[in-house]
């Protein structure tokens, strides 16, 4: 039996390896965008990973101080900032912030339909917790006009939309690719989004570096970024040392800003991550116990039957 099995297994392995080698040899060329990508360690990675509430608050400070000038966050409301598992600001704090910033919203803030006052005019009112986070531009056209024709993407789900995983890292060979896929499952890698954002924020170059792709020329008005696909990005370096003063006294470095905004954007894209992981752990425990009980039942039933 074992001999048979080994013969078979080795035949299979040889066949697969043959095909695999064939394809990876033929495929060695191609692929590989040459995007720089560096994995970071995040508090919310892994089964027991949770958002760091202080980090989310710092991230919000970066968003509010820098990003909000150009980037909308249409799917989030101010109330989300007070919810459990997020930055968890007090309602009064957010209300006071809206008041002191004199945030006014048009009604309604989506572009469909209008709410008008008694004279039939559009009107604005001070923002409430239930309002969506106010967008910097009235619409996409206005945003593009103000940004040299480039549309600053909305930030609501960008933490997931820019996720990198194994097959986006430009790994050419079949086996390294399979290995990366399996590794991602085992290590539970779901932080490709914040990793990308962090890398993007920290890989601007003032001049085109020597390791840039051959024949690379930087178009007028663009900036060189080693992490960006194609390397020519419209956005000027948004973060730098000390661009935002943290209220919790954390040292304001570019690295710190980049980490905090990445974590904040991940939260914005996945606001229920803490609850989800907690719930998942309970479900797994429940199923593990159930499977043991069922195994016992099954064994008892089959006790006298050889099969």
């Amino acid at each position: 039996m074992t001999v048979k099995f080994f013969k078979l297994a080795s035949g299979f392995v040889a066949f697969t390896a043959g095909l695999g080698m064939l394809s990876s040899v033929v495929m060695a060329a191609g692929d590989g965008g040459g995007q720089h990508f560096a994995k970071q360690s995040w508090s919310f990675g892994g089964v027991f990973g949770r958002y760091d509430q202080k980090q989310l608050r710092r991230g919000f400070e970066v968003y509010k101080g820098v990003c909000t000038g150009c980037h909308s966050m249409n799917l989030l409301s101010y109330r989300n900032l007070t919810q459990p598992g997020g930055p968890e600001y007090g309602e009064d704090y957010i209300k006071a912030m809206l008041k002191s910033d004199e945030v006014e919203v048009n009604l309604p803030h989506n572009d469909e339909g209008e709410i008008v006052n008694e004279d039939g005019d559009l009107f604005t009112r001070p923002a409430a917790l239930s309002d969506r986070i106010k967008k910097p531009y009235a619409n996409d056209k206005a945003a593009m006009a103000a940004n040299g024709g480039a549309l600053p993407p909305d930030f609501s789900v960008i933490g997931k939309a820019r996720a990198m995983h194994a097959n986006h890292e430009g790994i050419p060979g079949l086996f390294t690719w399979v290995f990366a896929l399996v590794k991602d499952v085992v290590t539970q890698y779901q932080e490709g989004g914040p990793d990308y954002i962090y890398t993007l924020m920290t890989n601007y170059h003032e001049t085109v570096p020597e390791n840039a792709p051959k024949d690379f020329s930087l178009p007028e008005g663009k900036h060189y970024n080693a992490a960006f696909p194609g390397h020519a990005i419209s956005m000027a370096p948004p973060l730098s040392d000390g661009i935002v003063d943290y209220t919790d006294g954390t040292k304001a470095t570019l690295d710190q800003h980049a980490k905090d905004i990445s974590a904040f954007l991940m939260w914005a894209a996945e606001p229920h991550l803490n609850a989800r992981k907690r719930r998942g752990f309970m479900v797994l425990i429940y199923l593990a116990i159930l499977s043991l009980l069922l195994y016992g039942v099954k064994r008892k039933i089959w006790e006298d039957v050889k099969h």
Partner: protein
Amino acid sequence: MAHESVYTPNSGIEKWLDERLPIIRLGVDFMAMPTPRNLNYWWTFGGILFFFLMVQIITGIILAMHYIPHESMAFDSVEHIVRDVNWGDMLQNMHSNGASFFFIAVYIHILRGMYYGSYKAPREMLWILGVIIYVLMMASGFLGYVLPWGQMSLWGATVITNLFSAIPFVGGAITELLWGGYAVGQPTLNRFFSLHYLMPLILFAFVGLHIWALHVVGSNNPDGIEIKLKEDSLPFHSYFSMKDAFAMVLFAMIYVYFVFFMPDYMGHPDNYVRANPMVTPPHIVPEWYFLPFYAILRAIPDKLFGVIFMFAAIAIVAFLPWLDTSRVRSMRYRPTAKLFFWGFVATGLLLGYLGAKPAEGGYVIASRILTAYWFLYFIVALPLLGWTQKTKTLPGSITEAVLGKDAMKNNK
């Protein structure tokens, strides 16, 4: 049912009901189906598939209560479910990952059937119904992936619906009918939502037929021989119902791991970007479970023939009962055929890899070689092997296969 009824109504009410609507008899006999005692754990995937069908239907009904099939609202309505509906993020992750696990289970189920020759007489109808269910699953999966209206939804739908335009004469008309216009847009999304809701109902009916056919011919088994002795079989309940339940929970644990800890692993990040007809993504990739067929499509240089080969690659599976000429069912007793079978599995996996890669250079060459293997396996290897192979001696009965020849003699 193919076996004698084991039900005797005890109370007056049961007797009364049994003469008018023998529904209890149906249920009792259903659960008592004589099942080969030597089934291994690969036989638990039928039950697992039923579990996933129910998961998809239940979560789907609830998601449909909140979803809006409108091109400017679909994306936001899915995000609304995830963000604001109670348990919404869990339901949405269960549904999207449920589709993936449905396919993982169905691929194991199909390959199990291929390995142990479960398609051979008298199980041809059972097999063909299974292939129809698989095709309906693919349709449901494709339609469902369009609904969140992200970039991959829109562009995946564009690529797949465009395939129909390759059909001579009527292709254009069919494509416009699918679109409800001249491009994928609002009418497409609306009808895809309707069809996505319809598909599982049809699927459910076919699952009913599939199970009916199973109860007529009985389960195949790892040794591929029919039940002959009384000791060869055991009643389905509680022997196999409990074994299935145990396997189901184990498989559900893997599913749960993905749902709660890596819900986006099997999806494409681009589908978190709102659908935009003005921006084409650099690589348009279908869901992972279509990748082998996508690779076959792109391996063929001609559009029409690519489409034909892609559909043929699926359709040919339905003809297995007649393509495989071997009189022995199980690969356990067909050592040469077994190697070809594993070659086929490797081909499927590698084609999946190639489907995810851009269609250029070496990838295309490799796709062509593997596409050739896919078809040659069915139309050359299986017929020839059946005629020329040397098979091992089959055991006299299932019980003999389990206990061994000596033990059988000692018993007598």
